[in-house]
């Protein structure tokens, strides 16, 4: 995993160069997700992970939102509570990572955009993928939403809806 991550970074340098030369052709992934407003006595913003799975390939984390501001990187201690993501990808990462780590978000609808070759975002060759979004809330619940995606040359669209910790998740791949 470490190796593949390094490869991504190396690839990113190369791709960034390409992107600079021809920015219009860069593939982008837009993930829009809703964090429901919950009526609970003690609310903490959830940790949210977004990653890409493809059969036979290691999972790729594109985003992890957590307590980034804590001293001594202390927010990382609870990353393993985003349990599905932790096992799929998180435990092999060194965090914080540029373009991957982000601060937690309040309830509401959020759109995150990723550009192929930047941060943790790979270029998605045509094929079948799953975009996974997992939210884990301190003293609260945890939920994973899976969005199956068939990427073609034209891009891809997909959506799914959570029932507790996540609302609607919409995914768009475009070029």
């Amino acid at each position, binding site marked *: *995993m470490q190796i593949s991550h390094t490869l991504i970074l190396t690839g990113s340098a190369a791709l960034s160069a390409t992107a600079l030369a021809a920015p219009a052709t860069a593939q982008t992934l837009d993930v829009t997700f809703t964090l429901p407003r919950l009526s609970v006595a003690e609310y903490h913003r959830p940790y949210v992970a977004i990653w890409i799975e493809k059969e036979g390939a290691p999972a790729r984390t594109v985003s992890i939102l957590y307590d980034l501001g804590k001293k001594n*990187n*202390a927010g*990382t*201690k609870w990353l393993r509570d985003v*349990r599905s993501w*932790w*096992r799929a990808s998180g*435990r092999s990462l060194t965090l914080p990572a540029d373009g991957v780590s982000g601060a937690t978000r309040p309830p509401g609808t959020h759109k995150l955009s990723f550009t192929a070759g930047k941060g943790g975002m790979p270029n998605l060759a045509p094929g079948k993928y799953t975009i996974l979004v997992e939210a884990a809330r301190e003293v609260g619940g945890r939920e994973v939403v899976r969005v199956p995606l068939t990427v073609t040359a034209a891009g891809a669209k997909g959506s799914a809806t959570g029932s507790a910790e996540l609302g609607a998740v919409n995914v768009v791949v475009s070029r």
Partner: protein
Amino acid sequence: MKMFRTLLLAAGAALALPTMADAAPRPWMLPSETMFAGTGNEWLTVDAAISSDLFYFDHPGQNWEPVITAPDGSVVEAQNRTVGKLRETFDVPVTAKGSYKIAITNVMVMGSFMLNGERKMLPRGTTPATLATAVPQGATDVQTAQATTRIETFVSAGEPTTTVFKPTGKGLEMVPVTHPNDAVVGEASTFQFLLNGKPAADLDVTAIAGGVRYRQDLKQIDAKTDAQGKVTLTWPDAGMYWVSVSTGGRRGPGSPEGGPGGPGAGAPAPQGGGEGQGTPRPPMGPPQDRATYAMTIEVQG
């Protein structure tokens, strides 16, 4: 249950082995968690106990010496080790990235000897270290066998590693095909078991999820090791599981092939009360070594 064993021992030379497998409660460890972030300053705490139900404290606490192996193979000292009335507990500093093994190994010596024309049993709790003093002067025809019990659990900081699984070649041991910290609900895990370093074929494997007290069905998963000593288990639910393997017919009715410590030796004697199975006891042979392995693993949901 304890009473059965005492009775069996009192029953004398007819039974060369105490009935560890059938009458004994289950030995286990319970880790506070199995997945660590790997920040370098985390703590694991472990409960260790024997009990009838998993994972509850309902038998006397055991004074067990845990051996903790760090990802680099070094031995980590357990801290704050306490033996309570119903359990033992200890802390483990998780400072390195990779997988840790927490193991407790017990070797008991069972057997008998002739003294003044009478066959006497070795006292309960005899170990290889105390055997010499347990056999009095003048004893003849000393017959002994060892019962090796190994219980283990595993935790990983960051990515799991496999350095701690080097087998020692003694007793029953587990070598993962699927890392024990990679068990996931709905997926299959494969483990290989070795007996004295060789594949332990055709042994019964049982897996039981914790929380027994709150369900009526034990939901025990039964499987058997293949010729390579491998077994594949598919996890129906997330949670902590106790996975146990034993030579010589563990719990459960109707393992037909008996053998030392099997149903013949294991069934409580009729005077044990109510559970007499009427199976004729096989003729007594010399005591035989036996081995038990049990691990606690967390199945991720």
